């Protein structure tokens, strides 16, 4: 009797216990729905984030101000000059320029493009593929062979988690193909395609502008191959110039990132200067500006603190000094121009509204100078007779872009014997030098152009540098050494040792450029 009662209680208890254990196991799954993040997001919101991320990265503090603009001697470092001596441009320091773009903006742009392609919206995938190409070019120009055709395809069902590296030659072929498609498809963008609209901070969804930008980029990459593959360069320049919509024809066409400057999202140079004061203008760029009475010097730089040192008040500092010697230049070399400063900084007040200054993704000045070079060399369907016109247009556009709008000032500058277009190899050197000046704030492009043209001539590392030549590429990422070793080694076997001095594909014929001799 007692036992039966006990057993009954046991049974009830067991039933409760079983209930506790097994209750609603089906509902468990629904509990795992992520309340924080959605599994889908609008193309526009992805695009906005991706384009300002990639612009801030390659035209901002890390890649440009503490990397490319020191290598190309737009700027120099007064304190902790490790980057300027390439000590801190080794694999551990530059890995982020490899690792981050892929997993951040490139992947997001791929998703935007996929959405646009699926819905037949060139107005969505055109801009996404254009900015993807722009981003990829900084990668391949900085590292050489990088994953491209296999890249960005990771997923849980077997996409390439360890993508192979493509030869740079094939990557450039991919650029041309992509940009041609973008240009052609944008020409037939259906009226029903709402595009990206206001989610596109660059052109506010204007399809024709994207078309011009795609064609202009097409021309940039075509010209880059001119030393190693002149035939392709010629054909692709022609393709770019004759593509529907054409290339930039004025400053109002250029691609720029208009920073809100609201304290949250600011111009990346102004963000850097807000807390750091150890960049000064390089003597290399400063001497070029001063030698030609360049009115841009007042925009690009500020007078030195100790203004008695220089008659005009402007001075540069040598690159790659040891910390011992670099510090003194804080007072005796020019800071970047006031327009790049946000106003109040931790070390004083300079300028004012730099937080809102746009970043120049691609300028009309560069396009006109590309046309000038193509013309001088008879490429892309242009002829030498057109070179001077394009040259003058390019220089004028650059001056105007930086606020030198006074016609007399422009004419005076252009009229100087050193600036007035000479034609021939001398002309090509002038074109390259003007591009070097115009590409201030885009050290990455200036670095690539120097490798292709040897202009500015005679560039050498500073005395404290850890190598005795200007770097021609960055080391591959340690992440890839760890994770994607086999594919990386195949690339190194093809391209050459993983160091500063190995040349990327388009840089492998150093003597082919007429401006190098």
């Amino acid at each position, binding site marked *: 009797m007692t036992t039966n009662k*006990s057993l009954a209680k*046991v049974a009830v*208890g*067991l039933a*409760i*216990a079983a209930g506790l*254990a*097994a209750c609603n*196991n089906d509902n468990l*799954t629904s*509990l*795992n729905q*992520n*309340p*924080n*993040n*959605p599994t889908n997001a609008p193309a*526009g*919101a*992805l695009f*906005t984030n991706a384009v300002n*991320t990639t612009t801030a990265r390659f035209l901002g503090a890390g890649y440009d101000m503490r990397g490319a603009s020191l290598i190309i001697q737009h700027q120099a470092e*007064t*304190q902790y000059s490790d980057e300027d001596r390439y*000590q801190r441009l*080794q*694999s*551990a320091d530059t890995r982020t320029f*490899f690792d981050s773009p*892929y*997993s*951040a903006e490139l992947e*997001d742009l791929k*998703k935007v493009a996929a959405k646009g392609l699926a819905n037949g919206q060139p107005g969505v995938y055109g801009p996404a593929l254009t900015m993807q190409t722009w981003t990829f070019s900084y990668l391949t120009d900085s590292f050489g062979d990088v*994953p491209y055709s296999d*890249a*960005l*395809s*990771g*997923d*849980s069902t077997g996409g390439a988690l*360890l*993508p192979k590296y493509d030869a740079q030659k094939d990557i450039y072929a991919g650029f041309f193909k992509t940009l041609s498609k973008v240009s052609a498809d944008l020409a037939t963008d259906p009226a029903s395609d709402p595009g990206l609209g206001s989610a596109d901070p660059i052109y506010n969804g204007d399809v024709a502008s994207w078309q011009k930008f795609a064609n202009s980029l097409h021309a940039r990459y075509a010209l880059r191959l001119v030393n190693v593959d002149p035939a392709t360069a010629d054909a692709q320049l022609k393709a770019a110039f004759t593509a529907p919509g054409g290339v930039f024809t004025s400053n109002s066409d250029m691609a720029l990132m208009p920073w*809100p400057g*609201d*304290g949250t999202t600011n111009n990346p140079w102004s963000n850097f200067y*807000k*807390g750091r*004061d150890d960049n000064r203008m390089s003597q290399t760029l400063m001497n070029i500006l001063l030698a030609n009475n360049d009115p841009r010097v007042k925009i690009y730089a500020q007078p030195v603190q100790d203004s008695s040192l220089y008659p005009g008040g402007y001075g540069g500092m040598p690159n790659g000094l*040891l*910390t*011992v010697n670099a*510090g003194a230049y*804080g007072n005796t070399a020019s800071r970047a121009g006031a327009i790049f400063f946000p106003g*109040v900084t*931790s*070390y004083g007040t300079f300028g004012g509204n730099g937080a809102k200054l746009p970043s120049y993704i691609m300028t009309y000045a560069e396009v006109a100078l590309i046309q000038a070079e193509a013309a001088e060399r008879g490429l892309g369907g242009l002829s030498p007779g057109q070179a001077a016109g394009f040259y003058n247009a390019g220089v004028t556009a650059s001056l105007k872009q930086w606020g030198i709008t006074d016609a007399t000032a422009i004419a005076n500058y252009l009229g100087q014997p050193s600036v007035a277009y000479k034609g021939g190899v001398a002309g090509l050197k002038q074109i390259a030098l003007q591009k070097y000046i115009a590409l201030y704030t885009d050290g990455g492009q200036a670095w690539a152009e120097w490798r292709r043209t040897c202009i500015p001539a005679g560039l050498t590392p500073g005395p404290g540098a850890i190598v005795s030549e200007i770097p021609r590429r960055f080391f591959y990422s340690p992440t*890839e050494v*760890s*994770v994607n070793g086999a594919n990386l080694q195949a690339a190194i076997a093809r391209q050459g040792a993983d160091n500063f001095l190995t040349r990327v594909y388009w840089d492998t014929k150093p003597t082919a450029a007429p401006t190098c001799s």
Partner: protein
Amino acid sequence: MLRLLKRISSVTAALATVASVAAAQQSGTISGRVLTEAGTPLASASVSIASLGLGAYTNDRGDYTITVSAARLTGQTATLTARRVGYAPKSVTIKLSANASIAQDFTLIQNANTLTGVVVTALGIAKEKSQLGTAQQQLSSTELNTTHDPNVLNQLQGKVSGVNITSGGTQGGTTHIVIRGSNSIKGNNEPLFIVDGVPVTNDNPLQASPGGGGLGGGGRDFGSAISDINPDDIATLTVLKGPNAAALYGSRASNGVIVITTKHGEASNGKISTQFTSSYTWDTPSVLPTYQNSYGQGAGGQFAYKDGQGGGIQDGNDQSYGPRLNGQLIPQFDSPVVNGIRQATPFIAHPNNVYSFFNTGHTVDNNIAFSGGTDKATGRLSVGMQNVAGIIPENTMQKFTGSLNGTLSVSDRLSTSAVVQYTNDAARNRPGVGYNTGILEQFVWFGRQVNLPELKNQFYNADGSLYNWNSNFHNNPYWIQSENPEQDDRDHVIGSVSANYKVADWLNAQFRSGSNIARFNTQQDFAQGNLNFGDQSYFGALQLYNFRTNENNTELLFTANKQVGSRLQLNGTFGANKRYITTHNARTSTNGLAVPGTYNISNAAITPINTQYDDRKQVNSGYGSGSFTWDQWWTVEVTGRNDWSSTLPKGNNSYFYPSINTSFVLTNAIPALQSRFLSYAKLRGSLAEVGSDADPYQLLTTYNGQTTKFGSLPQFSLSDNIANSTLKPEITKSGEVGMELGFFGDRASLDMTYYDKATTNQIIQLSVSPASGFNTTSINAGKIQNKGFEALLTITPIKTGNGEFTWNTTLNYSQNRSKVVSLYPGLQTQVLGGQWSANTEARVGYAYGAIYGFPFKRDSAGNLLLHNGLPQQGSLRVLGTIEPKYVAGWSNEFRFKRLSASVLLDIHRGGNIFSITNMFGQYSGVLASTMNGRQVDWDKPGLVVKGIDQKTGKANTDTVTSEQYYQSLFQLHEPFIYDDSYIKLRELRVGIDLPDAMAARMHASAVNLSFVGRNLWMHTKVPNIDPEFTYNTGNFQGMEFGELPNTKSLGLNLRITP
């Protein structure tokens, strides 16, 4: 606690006479009293005759009575045994004659030997230790509280074998604990804590790191949840070492379990007893870097101050490679300015400038506890207050703990209990660690000539700008403490209610529902001018962080015990549990405030940045165990558990895992084995498997909303992790064998275990090539193996006949060898964390926690290859491992009459660390070690680095300055990888029990006054830092930067027992 006692009743010797149908008419009785050595009654001790399956428990007066039926009184002899948790059992032989009425008293002695007696095991079930087939170690309240440390985990250091404990130096900071090595590549490797049946994880939502400062945390160590438990409230702490002992706890048991039971009230006829403890401790940093005092701020031997930002000569520079400190006249930050011109003043060393920043800290800790009860109800209330004045200026911490424990017997069958522990932990200016926020970081970059007290006396210049020695990179450290306060507070409640129902004499049912609830807020103010955070164009900045978590466990558990015949004892448990966890994280910050001095988010001048993260998880479980013990010498137990987890996909979310263990008490099986030499011998072995689930939301790849908008445009980005909708549970398989031996009548005992365990199918976010578009992918892969040996030797070398002098010594030893066996096809490594380009990794073929970094570039003969006379980076390789060769503890306890003393040495042998303090301390030239090469002047005599010039291939002859040399070592990790061996005098205590008469005058039965010390001495070869450090409870360990050293504490303890 009552339920625990009830279970003891079932376990020990089947006191229940279930089958006794015949009522005894002429029964006999055995009765008596169980007392402590001190003569106080011991309630709830069991007294039993195992051979007859008879037994009883003592009441609150210590009395027991056993009734024996007439039929069993046959004149035979029997063994009568008295036992109680924490005491050595005692047996006597009695003769059971007809109508006997036997009186038998016992005096139980507190357990010195850890081999026998009743211990708390998984699910809080008390068992005879002799019946356990797995390794575990139990510490009593006394053992825990030898000296005073507010964090109970620090009290475990050096006392438990198989456990590796590292404590951060930050007062109130984290202590990292790993039992038998790390199992999981990326998951949690800390044990699960069970406090009075309620699971408590030792995580802190804001984990600090050697990288230091981030939004609302990262740069500060806020401590971990378990440090909220008041050590004075703990009755016993049991370490279940690994999956074998802990299999019943399920998913989280693979790393072992620490079961804490708190003190409870005892039946005392309603008389309330009061216990009071008080301690006062003086704390100082145990080690600070050794600085050079020959060269001041600057570079290249040059320095002159103008504005601290490069306006003078090298005055923006924050290193000490400046001019020699020989009193030459140089303008300095504290030099007088006359008519706008800064005067030159003597350039001299201030050798104490860093040391004087640190104070002697004070910790005052008072606890009072009241307990008592009747046979129907008991209660204990404990209140603790702790006040810490830290070792850095303006750092204070207050902790309040309250604990209430009550039991109520509703009827003979139904009893209930409720426990609640409340902690409020509030701090101001917890010291920062790591880069950017580190207290010691700012002294790594420092001018050795800086007269620090000047900065304490003055915060602002006449024009309102900040007064400081450097304005480029550093804030005035005193101004930071005073005007940029960090504040945090945490409310933590651990509570449960339970009911125990005796279904039948052999069957008990228990229902319990308990929660671990924590709420945590931090606020960090940044005054205008703070260089680390905040836009200079606004009036300061503000960061707020808000966290709450609630984990509820509701459990129903049946326990059955039955004696079959006189030799077979059967035990069984069956239970079910529902675990439901929610957490909420929210951060709000602004980099710009509109009005100075008002630190409120509504004062933001720019759109605040907000983030929110919530998660929810549920696990349902059913589990059970069955065991038999034959004739008191052979026990076999099997367990099984099935979990259903919300975080795994349908089809994979139900998983079962079993375990089996057995023990043989050889000296019981073959009594002939016993000798004067060998008094006890037991062998045990166990095989176990434990399954584990994933973190929430790993099944579907998501898009993450960005914390900032682009102007007014929303921004999203695809997650960098590829989710996996087919995840499976990860499985840890573990085997262990052990031996427990007693010698010389238990004067010595040895407990040894060898284990081998492996975790497979690990759920990891595996690193993939970023070129895939993702950084990681969630997969099941990888295998980590841990093999190890642990031993605990306890000896009483001296015990005088009259017991006036005793010496107990305990030695424990733990050695674990881990190996990352595999990760994923084609993959060699998984990064656990990294700093300055060195990583701590799980790398195939190496122990868990390989340090991977840049060595010197060398030729094939091992010579350094130099460029311009300086070393260069070689190719990345493994430079060391964080895994120690062994850890050991040696404790000694001496007692002479009223005097007692104890000493604990903590030994950590082998393993490596990467010290970033040393790397930057040399880069910046503040460390004494950078005098090499500048013994004469900043550039004299210089250094000729031994090596081969890479260009010439010949021996190097280039002379470089010490500045060039030490700066060339930046991100060259090899010279900063150290052997992490150390010996610490962890605890020292000398105490006296005041004479009874004096105690009586204080209305107390005992008064103990002790002098206590922690971390008083250390031996290590690691320079300038405390080689023992941690920043968090995570897996990224082994890299040090700006960590505060563990404090050296001296103090007085007063304990008054009623």
